[in-house]
């Protein structure tokens, strides 16, 4: 009874019985059979119309009507496969791009972190505003103080990152490790999949070494052996008991942590750790506490901290603020997710905005296509209107068709998105935080469906503007004399082309700005010659290389053997690899400079431990004084080099040469013997930090600290790939147990450091190109159609002697007027909108004149090409055939 065809059938039957009774009455009154039939029909009126309006009155029948409309639309689209294919492809592109970017936004920004109550997870770092340090690690003393004093957190845990060699003997693997204070697993709310986490006893300095492995290391190194828990493995040469395995894909802050170990310390000696900032904190708020209240509590903690905590008397007054949080050296609480997403958030929203524009342009094109189709269907529409189809019914028909097209587009779009997303993550996963949580899931599919139906409704209703404006009788008149077709319906199409052009201009300008800023970033002087450099990382296991002299000997041996490889010109080792190394130094005493509570601290951003060949290998020029020389050996007077930024900061207007310095409170006094050119250590887009170079060979006696983790750089005429085998064999010769990691060319290191701007520039130019193409097609389509409409007029003009150039200019003028309006509107729009992309620009103004002018001209040129083809076709109109066929 409620099924659609039943209801339709019932209405048919009801009306048929009406006609039947009317006919009978007429027969009974003596009319002939023919007359009775004819007259009863005439009296009844328009049967189709009666059915139509009655059906329209059926509420609750909306769904039936929608299905009916969709079926009809589907049938009529099947008759125009080319049109449908073009339309679906356009929408697939637009919707697919939106789906892909939205799935990234969903996974990165919108989806909560995969921990219970992620909104209560707070990431805690410190800041030193005076030193321009933000998100800086905190020290163990601070962590312990905070744990004892705060009332906001249910649990607090800290960790520090490192790298260890696992697997022992033959082929050790180098993995990222984390040492944690407190129970990070508990704070996160994730328990090991097998075994246990750490207990307080595990952090005791004398406790036997234990470790929890990530699922990934357990699988790849130990083959997923379930018996591994409880047994020992070799970590950095230390026999360590595996107590647990974390669940698959468990990580923290995308750091690729593969091994978890307890940080061992003696709580009684917490003050020894003060000033050593190396811990990142995670706190889980109590259920009743919000981030805002926790911050309020922090303020009052900071105000009393220094007073409550006796800073050891050994700490110089001007250093105290490094050792105890105060309002000047504050801790900061950030929502963990917001902190992880960081600057990627704005970048992703910019991309979403850009694909949104692409979709709008695609919609404008679709609307134009449908308009043209509506034109060509005027006769069909007239006939149907005459047969009783109401205007609303015809309107629904258009919308049904466009919704079908956009849904089909959406379907293909999901495939496009899946493919695009795969490519996107494969190429740029590193520059997207939380990349592993990016998937096309139900939420994303829901977004796609809403988008498809929404856009279908939008572009489907554009032709209605025109249908509404003209009566059916108007359509009849116009179809008889097409040349007099009103300009009203051209207005809609022209407006669409102008809008498309304007949107495309805005998008291409956005892409242009991103490209220009990426280009500028690539032009930044990194401070050394980064071509033909190969680099890799070596970490000497603490156990086997406990003796500093053994470390020095190893590097000397490795360097001299690599130097002997054919094609290698120079080799050196350094502790920190530019251009993205973390700040690693702070307290450095410059002898002779005044100190005091009100004088800024003598903070140095970087200590760089280098082997003597460093400056030559990197091709870093010495600006003043000299570089390290063979004579600066272990037994010689200790010397250091500084960079220009350091010389300028501490010795403005004076020479730094001959000044003396004690890095990190080392007993020895180093003399500055040279000033070298600045190297970009903290990112190409950041200003240069102050840097102190220390000779690796001089470290044991004078600093008491010889780094185990060094990066080697090899300058060679050979490619990085060609060097891999000989370098590996050198290492195998020297110490087969040393794993090499991060073997790559310096160009790749820089590419990784600039991957986000690169990714943005690439995607934005991709979207810009699609926008450009769509806008050009749109312009071309509208002009071609208008030429075909005006064939008769043009033919008459030519028959009356108009020159080809005249006809050409008529069409061109019309097209270029539209294009100029579009480009103009786009430039104005871009002036307003580009301020939104400022966050992703480097050294380029959001209203960069060069970009605006170049894009404006370029778009005008593209429009000209799009206009030239129909204009050229117009000149080839043969007056006689044109007039005859009309």
């Amino acid at each position, binding site marked *: 009874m409620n099924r659609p065809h039943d209801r339709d059938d*019932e*209405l048919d*039957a*009801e*009306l048929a*019985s*009406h006609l*039947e*009774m*009317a006919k*009978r009455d007429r027969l009974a009154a003596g009319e002939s059979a023919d007359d009775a039939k004819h007259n009863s029909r005439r009296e*009844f*009126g*328009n049967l189709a*119309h*009666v059915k139509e*309006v*009655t059906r*329209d*009155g*059926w*509420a*609750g029948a909306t769904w039936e009507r929608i299905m009916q409309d969709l079926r009809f639309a589907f049938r009529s689209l099947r008759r125009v496969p080319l049109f449908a294919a073009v339309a679906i492809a356009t929408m697939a592109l637009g919707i697919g791009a939106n789906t892909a970017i939205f799935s990234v936004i969903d996974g990165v920004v919108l989806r909560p972190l995969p921990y219970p109550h992620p909104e209560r997870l707070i990431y805690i770092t410190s800041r030193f505003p005076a030193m321009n340090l933000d998100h800086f690690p905190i020290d163990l003393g601070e962590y312990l103080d905070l744990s004892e004093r705060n009332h906001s957190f249910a649990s607090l845990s800290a960790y520090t990152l490192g790298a260890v060699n696992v697997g022992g003997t033959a082929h050790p693997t180098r993995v990222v490790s984390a040492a944690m204070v407190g129970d990070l697993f508990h704070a996160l709310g994730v328990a090991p999949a097998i075994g246990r986490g750490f207990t307080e006893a595990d952090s005791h300095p004398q406790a036997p070494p234990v470790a929890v492995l990530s699922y990934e290391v357990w699988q790849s190194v130990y083959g997923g052996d379930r018996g591994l828990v409880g047994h020992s493995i070799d970590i950095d040469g230390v026999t360590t008991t595996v107590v647990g395995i974390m669940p698959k894909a468990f990580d923290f802050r995308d750091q690729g942590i593969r091994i978890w170990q307890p940080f061992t310390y003696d709580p009684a000696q917490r003050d020894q750790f003060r000033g050593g900032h190396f811990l990142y904190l995670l706190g889980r708020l109590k259920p009743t506490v919000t981030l805002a209240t926790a911050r309020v509590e922090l303020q009052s903690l900071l105000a009393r901290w220094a007073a409550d905590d006796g800073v050891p008397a050994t700490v110089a007054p001007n250093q105290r603020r490094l050792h105890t949080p105060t309002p000047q050296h504050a801790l900061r609480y950030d929502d963990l997710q917001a902190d992880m997403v960081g600057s990627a958030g704005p970048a992703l929203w910019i991309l979403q905005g850009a694909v949104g524009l692409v979709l709008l342009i695609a919609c404008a094109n679709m609307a134009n296509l449908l308009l043209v189709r509506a034109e060509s269907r005027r006769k069909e529409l007239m006939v149907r209107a005459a047969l009783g189809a109401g205007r609303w019914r015809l309107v629904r028909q258009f919308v049904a068709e466009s919704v079908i097209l956009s849904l089909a587009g959406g379907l293909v779009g999901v495939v496009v998105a899946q493919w695009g997303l795969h490519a996107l993550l494969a190429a740029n996963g590193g520059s997207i935080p939380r990349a592993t949580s990016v998937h096309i899931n139900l939420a994303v599919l829901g977004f796609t469906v809403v988008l498809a139906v929404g856009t279908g409704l939008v572009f489907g209703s554009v032709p209605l503007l025109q249908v509404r404006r003209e009566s059916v009788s108007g359509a009849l008149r116009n179809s008889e004399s097409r040349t007099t077709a009103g300009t009203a319906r051209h207005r809609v199409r022209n407006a669409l082309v102008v809008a498309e052009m304007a949107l495309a201009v805005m998008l291409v300008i956005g892409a242009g700005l991103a490209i220009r800023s990426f280009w500028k970033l690539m032009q930044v002087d990194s401070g050394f010659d980064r071509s033909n450099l190969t680099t890799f990382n070596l970490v000497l296991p603490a156990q086997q290389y406990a003796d500093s002299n053994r470390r020095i000997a190893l590097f000397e041996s490795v360097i001299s053997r690599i130097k002997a490889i054919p094609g290698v010109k120079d080799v050196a080792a350094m502790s920190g690899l530019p251009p993205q190394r973390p700040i690693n130094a702070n307290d450095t005493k410059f002898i002779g400079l005044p100190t005091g509570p009100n004088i800024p601290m003598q903070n140095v951003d970087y200590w760089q431990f280098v082997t003597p060949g460093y400056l030559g290998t990197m091709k870093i020029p010495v600006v003043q004084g000299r570089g390290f020389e063979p004579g600066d050996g272990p037994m010689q007077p200790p010397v250091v080099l500084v960079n220009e930024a350091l010389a300028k900061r501490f010795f403005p207007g004076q020479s730094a040469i001959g000044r003396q310095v004690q890095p990190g409170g080392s007993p020895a006094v180093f003399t500055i013997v040279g000033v070298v050119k600045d190297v970009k250590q903290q990112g190409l887009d950041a200003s240069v930090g102050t840097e102190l170079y220390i000779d690796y060979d001089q470290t044991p006696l004078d600093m008491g600290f010889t780094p185990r983790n060094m990066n080697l750089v090899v300058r060679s005429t050979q490619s990085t790939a060609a060097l891999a085998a000989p370098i590996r064999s050198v290492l195998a010769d020297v110490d087969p147990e040393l794993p090499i990691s991060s073997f790559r060319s310096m160009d790749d290191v820089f590419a990784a450091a600039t991957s986000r701007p690169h990714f943005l520039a690439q995607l934005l130019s991709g979207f810009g190109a699609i926008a450009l193409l769509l806008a050009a097609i749109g312009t071309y389509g509208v002009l071609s159609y208008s030429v075909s409409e005006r064939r008769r007029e043009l033919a008459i003009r030519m028959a009356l002697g108009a020159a080809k150039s005249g006809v050409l200019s008529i069409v061109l003028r019309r097209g270029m007027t539209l294009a100029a309006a579009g480009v103009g509107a786009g430039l104005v729009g871009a002036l307003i909108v580009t301020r939104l992309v400022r966050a992703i620009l480097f050294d380029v103004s959001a209203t960069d004149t060069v970009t605006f002018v170049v894009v404006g001209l370029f778009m005008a040129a593209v429009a000209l090409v799009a206009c030239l083809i129909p204009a050229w076709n117009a000149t080839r109109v043969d007056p006689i055939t044109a007039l005859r066929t009309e």
Partner: protein
Amino acid sequence: MPRKPRPSDSRIEVLQGTLDLIILQALRWGPAHGYRLLQLIRSTTDGVLQVDTGSLYPALHRLARQRWVSAAWETSENGQRVRVYRLTPSGTRQLAIERSRWEQLGRAIAGMFAAPVKEDA
């Protein structure tokens, strides 16, 4: 024999909003199908009120949806299956409402005509 009014001279289009009243009132006399209703309306108003099928059927379906009338398939005296409409209790109540509204309107208009014209006095 009085001349039957021809549709063209005194035919009145059913006033907007009164169609429901007319149908409900017609059904008060007994159940009827659509064709009978048209005949009833025409004959009881001497052909003055003309309801066309394009208004009648949507109205019947609308009234059925509001449950003021019920509809059922029945077999007519000459063996034909017809859809017969009946007034429901709520339809009867609705008729009373519509009727009192109509009478109010009638009285108001009659009052206007009955008012004395001042200039004659």
